[in-house]
């Protein structure tokens, strides 16, 4: 027990150094006065999905957007990904617009459904985005192998999606998103359709992958404990209208394992997040 704590401390200090080093560059993503309204289908008053959101995300940060349905968390993620246009306000990624970043193919997206092409094998699914980018075949093959090793699916490369379990399919989705070496990984409730055991396994994997790849991750979930376990900061969104009601710093040490969920500090943070919701 003592030994373990020691290694944790060591790794933690290494990570902290890394964070402070990159922290000086400033923020990766700046969201200013962002509001989004959807026109009502019945011709009534427009629905306010997000109201006056301000947020700064640091490079390499793991940030989670958490909230109940209708709080605009997915809308916020989609706006960062240029899948949704702001009504007012702006999203700025390293001085560029989301559209420019998207055109540079710097986003990796993981959806709630794995969204795999059922006519392609696992390998060719991971390969697909690289084909679009015109990466040479040799390089593609090497990267696919590396990515599948990273998500622990190397032996399943020649299988088709329907031959895999839900958890494995989602891993393929993560490998595919990482294969293009994105600078920002956007994950929209990626584990919410999975059972609790599979989910926990993927939590551990994602923490490992993140510590290896050092990507900025924006993660959307409605699961508070998942948010606390994974993130550096939890952005709490409340509905009607969708708004940021709190930002909770998760100062749990890293690297984290599932055992951290049994600590009082973890539970205190979960309570803190839970109590930050308004009007639910």
């Amino acid at each position: 027990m003592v030994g373990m704590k020691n290694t944790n401390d060591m790794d933690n200090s290494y990570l902290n150094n890394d964070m402070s080093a990159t922290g000086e560059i400033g923020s990766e993503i700046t969201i200013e006065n962002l509001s989004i309204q959807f026109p009502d289908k019945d011709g009534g008053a427009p629905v306010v999905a997000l109201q006056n959101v301000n947020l700064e995300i640091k490079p390499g940060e793991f940030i989670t957007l958490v909230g109940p349905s209708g709080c605009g968390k997915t809308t916020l993620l989609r706006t960062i990904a240029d899948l949704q246009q702001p009504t007012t306000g702006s999203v700025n990624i390293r001085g560029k617009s989301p559209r420019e970043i998207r055109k540079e193919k710097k986003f990796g997206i993981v959806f709630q459904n794995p969204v795999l092409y059922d006519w392609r094998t696992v390998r060719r699914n991971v390969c697909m985005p690289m084909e679009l980018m015109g990466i040479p075949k040799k390089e593609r093959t090497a990267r696919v192998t590396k990515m599948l090793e990273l998500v622990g699916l190397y032996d399943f490369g020649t299988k088709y999606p329907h031959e895999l379990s839900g958890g494995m399919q989602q891993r393929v989705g993560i490998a595919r998103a990482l294969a293009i070496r994105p600078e920002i990984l956007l994950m929209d409730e990626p584990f919410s359709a999975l059972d609790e055991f599979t989910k926990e396994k993927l939590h551990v994997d994602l923490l490992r992958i993140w510590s290896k790849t050092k990507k900025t991750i924006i993660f959307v979930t409605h699961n508070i404990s998942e948010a606390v376990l994974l993130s550096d900061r939890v952005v709490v969104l409340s509905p009607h209208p969708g708004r940021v009601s709190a930002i909770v710093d998760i100062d749990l040490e890293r690297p984290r394992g599932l055992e951290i969920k049994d600590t009082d500090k973890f539970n205190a943070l979960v309570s803190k997040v839970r109590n930050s919701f308004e009007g639910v």
Partner: protein
Amino acid sequence: MNQIKKIVQSKQMVTFAWIIGLVAVWEIIASYVEKTKRTPDNVLPHLYQIVESVFSPDLVNGSQTAIQIVLSNAGITLFRAAIGFVIGTAIGFLLALLMNMFTAAEKIAFPYLMIIQMIPILGMAPIVLAITKDIDTSRIVIAAILTFYPVATNTLAGFKSVEKEKHELMYSLAARKRDIYKKLLIPSCMPYFFTGLKISAPMAITASILVDTLQGGGGLGCMLSQSLKHAMTIYVFWQIVFVGAIIGILSYALMTLLERLVSPNKKAKR
């Protein structure tokens, strides 16, 4: 013992039993017809009589035996049907592509695609012949019309069935339109496209045989009419019934085979 039981209860066995059953029903009716009708050959001959006629060396029209006539004319019919089918498939696929690319094209064509499946195209065969004045052209035209709309509607349905998230994935990768079609839309619509082909392949053959009956000049339908009018033995007609059925079923089977070749992962669920 178990092995035998397994074979007896297998799916193929059930199908086989049904075919035997159908043959039995045919034979019972044929025996009844034989006793009660003056010309049983015209009404319903025994199956063995039809099989016999296939192997009969008698020349029916001076130079060919019955089966030679049937097979050579089946070739003519099938060839024309195939040309019409290929043209219709190409037009249908391109129309679906256009309708998916341009909203205006979809708006213009969609109501007409709906109407065309309500109206009896086959009934228009004689007038198409009158306009084109050529039996081969009209065969191809009718087969093409009957092929193009199931292909167009099914392919379009295939394009539309692609999940929003798959589109968003392509969008997030800033994929070019060409790549979206090549990597996502066209592979996704393949099962739908083949559904269209499976519907239209037997239809193209039916159309081709029907157009044959409108005028002399060869083809299964032409021989069928002549045989019914007793210009040659009635067994030519019975052979055509079976050959027509077999090529209809084979055309369907061929499309299934093509689909398997094109998309090896056929077990995929969607």
